[in-house]
């Protein structure tokens, strides 16, 4: 796979890595869209799980619980979301 990527695929992997960890400029974003169309086995979220796992590994979440009033607001959102989803 990635260990022996051809130059165009390697460029796409670089853009996917840039996309996951920085901001792509418009030219690079357009280039990535073009490369992904040639390599449908990849998608723009290719490295996102890796980034999330690294973040969880290096900065373990604190044990601070969700504030109760915020939890209540989210549950109201949830009710609305489910009602909309049923429509």
């Amino acid at each position, binding site marked *: 796979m990635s260990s022996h990527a051809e130059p165009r695929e390697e460029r796409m992997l670089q853009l996917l890595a840039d996309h996951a960890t920085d901001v792509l400029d418009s030219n690079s974003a357009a280039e990535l869209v073009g490369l992904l169309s040639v390599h449908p086995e990849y998608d723009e979220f290719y490295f996102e*799980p*890796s980034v999330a796992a690294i973040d*969880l590994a290096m900065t373990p979440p604190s*044990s601070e*619980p969700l*504030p109760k009033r915020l939890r209540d*607001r989210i549950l109201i959102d949830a009710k609305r*979301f*489910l009602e909309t989803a*049923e429509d």
Partner: protein
Amino acid sequence: MNESLLQRVAAGDTGAVAECVDTFGGLVWSLARRILHRPSEAEDAVQEVFIALWKSASRFDPSIASETTFVAMIARRRLIDRQRRNARRPEGEPVAIEDLPLSAPDEPGQLDLQDEAAKAMAALDQLKPEQRNVLRLAVCQDWPHQLIADRLGLPLGTVKTHVRRGLIKVREELATGNTAPSKEAER
């Protein structure tokens, strides 16, 4: 077969939606507090994250990531987008590299952090210290690549290469659990 929590959310299970808030609320809140700092903004952002999570729940694929990693992925993307809209970081003095935490959590807590976090750490341990530092600054501190290059005195291309190879290594580790070094990530 038992459906996962997110699969039940995707199916419109009311109980699962509330359970999702209780299971992942602390994780999302903790990420929001770290990335956004201001409590009022963090609260608004956490509400947005959960709505995004419910909408995205059908995309969850347990063969790619655990539920915890999936939730963290959705949350990080939303929170970082929001933070970038506010202003580019860092403001003031950056956190010293040596001050950043290096180890995986000692206590697994309620979430299944241990497995994937440990795999990610195992992959990171195989990288050279410079590669690991670059990845840490890019992912945990959300520093732009150019800023990392400037602060570490590295060419921008080297920073990008370190990030790419590090992510490839972690992805391989998460997919296979195999710790054999890859040629691409080792270089």
